[in-house]
């Protein structure tokens, strides 16, 4: 054979770099986005003159997607257009109605696409901050990571600050309506009502109440939901709960559940859960409560998912989590027994059925329901004769 030592991969470099991997991931994300979300965005773009700003998120591999792939500098220089022109109001860019889209780049590789009938005015650019104003129309940005530099886009009453995200901003100058929709990552939005941190799937419209038909939040996939409360936002707007509302999600995303729970406390966790109709947010709330050491509150959020949205694809998993919580943390084996059976009935993925059945045996045994424990154990042995929990199941089902 060859004289080379094996495995040969140790002699070879990786042919595909981080920038390409990030670009692939973005394509995967776009294709994974639910069709309903794409449909919800289209009416918004049609109904209002759209300002679309897509900011380079914190990609999985830490690179941005802009052509210039230089790593972030710890002390960034002031940005300018890639042709050397300074970012000042004198260097405003406009595309007349009917004109072709223009694609430009900033000096750090940030990419700007300006649609027909749009005008973008750079307000200022210093090493510390970049501010641009979209007077009207549609602009799409892919913003390179800014490091310590603040990157803001103004659209009427909205000021959108890049935190590390991809989002869309629309502005209808005539109707004085602006809207921000976050595709992924986080963005901080300042409005006359206050400040909010929006996460993936969130949207905010200003003013919140308009005569235009609100864009309904995208429903979860495969869901039969009760009628959604009318919403001009896909997630609770900052005016709803005060300044801390969006911040809890940011804290949760950082794994700081105690802080996230504390931030929710201004309105009361139970009230937040009661008013929430987004399954994603309810599951996040459950994680926050569990992580902060409040299992009863977590059970509240999970219970809401299971009861109100039984046809959501995540409902079986929420039921399993709830059943475990009731059994382990709340000392409610009878309730857990019912919940775990429900989780199995709702249709858990195959990978989780063994766990759920084993837990059902345990819950039944602890609830003193020997008949159910033996029946569930029998079912377990039939389906998972050599299962991981066989010994435990045999023990639990022996009874007193």
């Amino acid at each position, binding site marked *: *054979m060859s004289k080379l030592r094996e495995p040969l*991969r140790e002699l070879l470099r990786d*042919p595909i770099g981080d920038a390409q991997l990030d670009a*692939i991931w973005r394509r995967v994300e776009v294709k994974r986005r639910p069709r309903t979300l794409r449909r919800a965005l289209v009416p918004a773009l049609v109904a209002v003159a759209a300002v679309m700003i897509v900011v380079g998120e914190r990609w999985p591999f830490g690179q941005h997607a802009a052509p210039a792939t230089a790593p972030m500098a710890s002390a960034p220089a002031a940005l300018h257009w890639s042709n050397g022109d300074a970012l000042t109001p004198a260097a405003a860019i406009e595309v007349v109605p009917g004109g072709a889209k223009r694609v430009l780049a900033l000096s750090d590789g940030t990419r700007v696409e300006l649609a027909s009938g749009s005008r973008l005015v750079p307000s200022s650019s210093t090493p510390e901050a970049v501010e641009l104003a979209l007077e009207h129309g549609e602009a799409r940005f892919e913003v390179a990571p800014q490091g310590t530099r603040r990157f803001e886009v103004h659209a009427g009453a909205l000021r959108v600050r890049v935190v590390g995200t991809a989002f869309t901003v629309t502005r209808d100058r005539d109707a004085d309506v602006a809207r921000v929709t976050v595709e992924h990552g986080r963005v901080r939005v300042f409005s006359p009502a206050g400040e909010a941190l929006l996460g993936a799937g969130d949207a905010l419209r200003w003013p919140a109440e308009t005569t235009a038909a609100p864009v309904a939040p995208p429903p*979860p996939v495969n869901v039969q939901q009760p009628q959604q409360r009318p919403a001009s936002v896909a997630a609770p707007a900052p005016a709803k709960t005060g300044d801390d509302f969006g911040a809890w999600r940011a804290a949760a995303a950082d794994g700081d559940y105690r802080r996230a729970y504390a931030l929710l406390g201004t309105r009361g966790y139970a009230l937040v859960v009661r008013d929430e109709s987004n*399954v994603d947010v309810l599951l996040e709330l459950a994680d926050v409560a569990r992580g902060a050491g409040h299992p009863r509150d977590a059970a509240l959020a999970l219970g809401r998912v299971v009861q109100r949205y039984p046809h959501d694809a995540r409902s079986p998993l929420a039921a399993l989590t709830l059943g475990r919580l009731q059994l382990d*943390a709340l000392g409610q084996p009878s309730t857990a027994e019912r919940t775990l059976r429900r989780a199995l009935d709702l249709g858990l993925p195959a990978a989780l059925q063994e*766990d759920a059945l*084993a837990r059902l045996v345990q819950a039944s045994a602890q609830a003193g329901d020997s008949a159910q424990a033996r029946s569930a154990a029998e079912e377990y042995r039939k389906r998972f004769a050599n299962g*991981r929990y066989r010994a435990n199941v045999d023990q639990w089902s022996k009874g007193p």
Partner: protein
Amino acid sequence: MALRDKRMSPSSIAIEFEHAPGSIAGDSPAPARERTDAELVYAVIAGVRRAEAELYKRHARTIAAVAARLLGRSADAEDVVQDTFLTAFERIRQLRDPQLFRPWLVRITVRHVHRRFRRRRLLRALGLDRGEDDAALSRLALSPFDTETRAELGKLDAALASLSSQQRVAFMLRHVEGYELTEVASACGASLATVKRWLSRADEVVRAHTQEDAS
């Protein structure tokens, strides 16, 4: 017996029984740690999009390298990486054992690689194959100035070009990627006997090419 719930976030679940006397552990916040593939798979099933990104981040580089070396073309490999992860996330509920996510992912990759090979054969037959083999082994040498290594890799490239796609994939998984025979069989979706047959044939061809020049 004690039940320990492996604390994960968000909304993901794993349960293990531990043979320890005494208490049943309840849910308690655990210090941050890297989640296992199985935990991430459960999270994806639960609809947590972040978990998809984590799985991608963890495995994409390896999948991309394997795909590129198998195909010899980085552009084709990028498409295969995209298709692999799309397929994986769409079918993740079919994964019987989430702990085996990586080998399952490699199997998906190999299937997509074979699709690419079929497409390439068709284009070649029509005289339309204009792709550049920018990821051929000889072009990926870590040390471009090691002429002997590059020469050997070049001979290997020539030998591999004359193999069937199945033989090529089996050979490369075994000798380039360093997979065990059972891993090659799993990745190829074939029996051990079939894989051995492919490898035997591939080894003959490679030997012939490398010794031919030596003689």
